[in-house]
């Protein structure tokens, strides 16, 4: 039943909280999931930018953090919490791996963050990567809030972050953009190049619409070139108790990416 509310400030809200579970074999054709092999060709372009073209996508399972010293993940949580989400970067390839424990990261192998090892499959979950703040959904009680995604090459302000579902831009800070989806979820995009952000607060956006360019902006300081992407939703525990949490997003990202690769983002 639709309840008609006369207020002039209402936004059409739609969407439902459905869940699907990743089939054990991954499900999508021509894509290998859970396979550590890296079958692609690594090319260096004229200006030294690393481009990984034609590699077969693979990802290590959710909850398996790499390197293992980077923390303890939600093992065997194969639930795709947001099954219809669009991948937040417009174009593939893109790489989910640690910025902190990867090559050039503060706790990682010595080198540059542009190292080609950071621009290869397989993806590695970093949702529960060790941080200092509380994350109730992570086994240690602490963790990262979302996942870090490198765009296809180590060039800033070149690749578009896009809307993951229809919604409204609810907040724009100096390096953060928040999209409140019609489902009520809040999607946060961080480290965007501020001048490139082409949406305004209050703008209604469509799934796949461009938001801003992925960069290394962290408010007066720099991080590696990547998109920090996280999603908050509210979980109802009954009896008047609920909690807003950061959703385990890795499996939904794998699912969305496979659709992007298959031309059905």
């Amino acid at each position, binding site marked *: 039943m639709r*309840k008609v509310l006369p207020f002039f400030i209402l936004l059409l809200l*739609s969407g439902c909280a459905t869940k699907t579970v990743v089939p054990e074999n991954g499900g999508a054709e021509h894509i290998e999931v859970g396979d550590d092999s890296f079958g692609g060709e690594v090319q260096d372009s004229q200006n030294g930018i690393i481009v990984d073209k034609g590699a077969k996508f693979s990802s290590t399972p959710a909850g398996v953090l790499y390197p293992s010293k980077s923390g303890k993940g939600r093992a065997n949580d194969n639930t795709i919490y947001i099954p219809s989400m669009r991948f937040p970067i417009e174009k593939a390839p893109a790489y989910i791996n640690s910025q902190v424990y990867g090559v050039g990261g503060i706790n990682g192998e010595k080198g540059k963050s542009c190292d080609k090892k950071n621009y290869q499959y397989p993806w590695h979950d970093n949702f529960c990567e060790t941080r200092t703040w509380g994350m109730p959904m992570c086994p240690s009680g602490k963790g990262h809030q979302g996942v870090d995604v490198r765009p296809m090459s180590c060039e800033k302000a070149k690749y578009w972050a896009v809307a993951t579902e229809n919604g409204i831009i609810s907040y724009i800070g100096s390096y953060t953009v928040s999209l*409140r989806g019609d489902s009520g979820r809040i999607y946060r995009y961080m480290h965007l190049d501020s001048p490139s952000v082409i949406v305004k607060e209050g703008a209604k956006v469509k799934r796949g619409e461009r938001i801003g360019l992925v960069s290394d902006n962290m408010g007066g300081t720099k991080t590696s070139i990547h998109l920090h992407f996280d999603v908050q939703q509210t979980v109802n525990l009954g009896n008047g108790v609920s909690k807003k949490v950061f959703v385990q997003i890795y499996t939904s990202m794998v699912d969305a990416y496979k659709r992007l690769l298959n031309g059905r983002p």
Partner: protein
Amino acid sequence: MSHKFYTILLLSSFLNAETLGLLDINWKQVNKEVVMSKPQKAYPKKLTDVIGKMTLPVYLPSNYLYESKYTLIADANFYTMSYHLEDNARLSITGDRTFQDTLNPNTTDGQSLLKASKMIEFYPAEGLMSTDFGRNGANYTLLVECYDSISDKRCTDKTFLQNIYNKLIIVGGTK
């Protein structure tokens, strides 16, 4: 004094209550709090008229910097009010009455969330300082983002945000 005040009005007029879960608000408790809520300076009527129609208690800082311009993004069950602080920071509060998932509180995750729902934590994450909390049935996020995330104490130390949190008041909302 002229207020630099921007409200974004959203014009759709219906809500599909079956496909989106709404949390129950403890209005009895809210009404008690409203009596206690006294802003240092009254919010403009134009603003309170709008937020008075929302279906959740609208918490805003009582002591926000009045000179700052602010933006309200709202529908009946959700709002984000953000303030452009003049000294290079952005303060925002989001309130939400919707939920997207349910969980049995007796599961491992349910127990973790139950425990977390009783705690208030101010955490510096990704260069921002924020806290998530539930009150009277709805959920809120209070956050400050600094243009200089490394050296601006408001984003590295919880004191600034905690002071704002301690002085939140209900400015609107209706059953």
